[in-house]
């Protein structure tokens, strides 16, 4: 990718001031999203992926969150987001940057109709007549696959199922034709079949409109289905980044390897599709992530890492090139990370 990216994040830090101390939720994250690219951010709960997204769009609460670094949105004259004025942020949101959240039920105002809230999004950046706005809203609802849109416009959120509501939220996000959509765990609170539908919808919309997407999930399976590039986060840092293909076939960080190993294995089948062998045991990662308040020196994954040696606990490693194009890993032993076990 040689053309200028849409969004560049440089050395982003986000610290939260809590009663228990300073939580270093994001500790030195850099990434870039290009035109029409789908970037996935994957990691355990608490690794900082949501905070990263919210910081990118400026939604972190004042008084608690403190940020440093740069987030630049290039198409608008290299607009810096972290130091943007409220008016600048407002003009970016909706028309350039959009976001959908994890739980559709709480992401909409329960006492206003879905139609009302959609119209609010449609008219946020352009002046439209009532009928024009309504037409656009109906069009958006059909595009996201909501049947009988005219009737559903007058319904309240509690009258929708989870999947339908998430579709409505996608419609709202797309209302002003943004160029970058951030999706924070959009399928996590939905059941599996609906998950697939929503993911396909997102992919389809992304291809149709050519917009870029950042997809955040703790579920590696979801990420690999949809994304072009992946960023793996752990304890507030990026530990590996690369294309989906590279990372799945040849992970270069022990944590990524462990994540891949932890994916449930289907049972083996022989050529005649008969059950041939037993399923392997579920492989989880022992231990738990470190506290983000008293961040240990050295590699943050070392206590749980099968490849760790004593030096790992004292050396702060940067993201190193692994030899493959644009494939970086924060591990000085990345050569020794083997292929994931089948």
């Amino acid at each position, binding site marked *: 990718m040689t053309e200028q990216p849409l969004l560049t994040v440089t050395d982003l830090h986000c610290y939260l001031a809590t009663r228990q101390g300073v939580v270093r939720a994001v500790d030195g994250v850099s990434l870039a999203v290009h035109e029409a690219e789908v970037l996935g951010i994957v990691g355990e709960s608490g690794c900082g992926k949501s905070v990263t997204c919210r910081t990118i769009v400026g939604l972190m609460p004042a008084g608690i969150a*403190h940020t440093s670094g740069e987030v630049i949105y290039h198409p608008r004259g290299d607009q810096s987001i972290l130091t943007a004025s409220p*008016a600048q942020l407002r003009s970016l949101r909706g028309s350039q940057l959009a976001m959908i959240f994890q739980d559709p039920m709480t992401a909409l105002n329960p006492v206003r109709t879905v139609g009302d809230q959609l119209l609010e999004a449609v008219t946020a950046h352009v002046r439209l007549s009532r009928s024009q706005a309504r037409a656009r809203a109906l069009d958006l609802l059909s595009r996201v696959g909501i049947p009988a849109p005219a009737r559903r416009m007058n319904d309240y959120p509690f009258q929708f199922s989870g999947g339908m509501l998430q579709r409505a939220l996608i419609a709202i996000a797309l209302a002003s034709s943004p160029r970058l959509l951030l999706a924070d765990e959009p399928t996590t609170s939905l059941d599996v079949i609906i998950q697939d539908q929503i993911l396909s919808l997102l992919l389809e919309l992304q291809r149709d409109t050519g917009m870029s997407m950042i997809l955040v999930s703790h579920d590696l399976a979801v990420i690999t289905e949809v994304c072009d590039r992946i960023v793996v986060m752990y304890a507030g840092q990026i530990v590996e980044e690369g294309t989906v293909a590279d990372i799945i076939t040849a992970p270069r960080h022990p944590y990524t390897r462990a994540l891949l190993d932890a994916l449930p294995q289907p049972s083996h089948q022989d050529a005649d599709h008969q059950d041939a062998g037993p399923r392997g045991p579920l492989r989880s990662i022992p231990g738990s992530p470190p506290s983000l308040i008293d961040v240990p020196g050295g590699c943050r994954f070392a206590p749980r890492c099968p490849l760790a040696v004593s030096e790992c606990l004292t050396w702060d490693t940067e993201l190193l090139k692994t030899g493959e194009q644009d494939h970086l890993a924060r591990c000085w032993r990345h050569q020794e990370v083997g292929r994931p076990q089948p």
Partner: protein
Amino acid sequence: MSAGGTGSGDLSTGDLTTGGMRAAWAASPSELLMKAAAKAASRRRSTVRRRLTLIAGLVMLAIAIVAVLLAPVLVSASPTTIDALHPLASPLTAGHLLGTDQFGRDVLARILYGGRIDLAIAFGATSVTLVGGTIIGLVAGYLGGRVDAILMRLVDLFFAFPFLVLIIAIVAMLGPSIFNMFIAIWITSWVSYARIMRAQTVVAKKQQYVLAARALGYGPVRVMFRHILPNVASAVIIFSMVDAVGNIILAASLGFLGLGAQPPAPEWGTMISDGQNYLLSSWWLATLPGLAVVFVGVAFSLIGDGLTDLLRAGER
């Protein structure tokens, strides 16, 4: 220093009109750490501040109780001695720190002795309704079924009446006196406690610890009082502080209306009522007893607020 934007970095919320709620920005990670740490420290300090409200309230209440109990020691004058030679003396005259009323009676003495009645109501009326209402609510919530239905209908019934009106009516029927004030309050105020307790009990009886206790074969009385009650008591205790303030005001109100303490007994409410007649000339007669009520009321409020934070912090 933070840079950029119309709102400066560390607002707790943003500018009302231009859309705040934006995180603070620092130029480098080390500066970032400093700012964040400073903010975290100030958050810790605010916890300490909340403990102070509880202590402040307790101290104020202690002062009030001691002053009232030690009244004979603190003032040499009697609250009922008439001194026809010095009526309506203003505060700070010799021998009368807070002045005298229209009969020459010492105001300070009347306030201290009068406090005994009002504090007695605060503690006496509140504690009985607290205990009674709690038990009824506990039983109703735990047993459920018809007992619950009947008791809660009764509670709803009482809630349909404005308390003051009902109490006035009851006192009217029984005859105005301090004791009848107690009775009127006992009859009407238990319902708030019952309602709170019942709601808490209904939720509590589905919890693991209750199911476990019952599985172990403990009888209902034991489960209710030894297991459920300690866990849900915080809500009613906090409410009892609010109720205490209400009861003091109630006692003063009834006194004001002439339905409580009868003359010549000193009581803050009756003093205010008497004082209203002399508002133009002797403002202190009506004002000072009210300040006493406010003092005690604020004490209970602070205790209530402090307890809320203390008990809620445990729940989080």
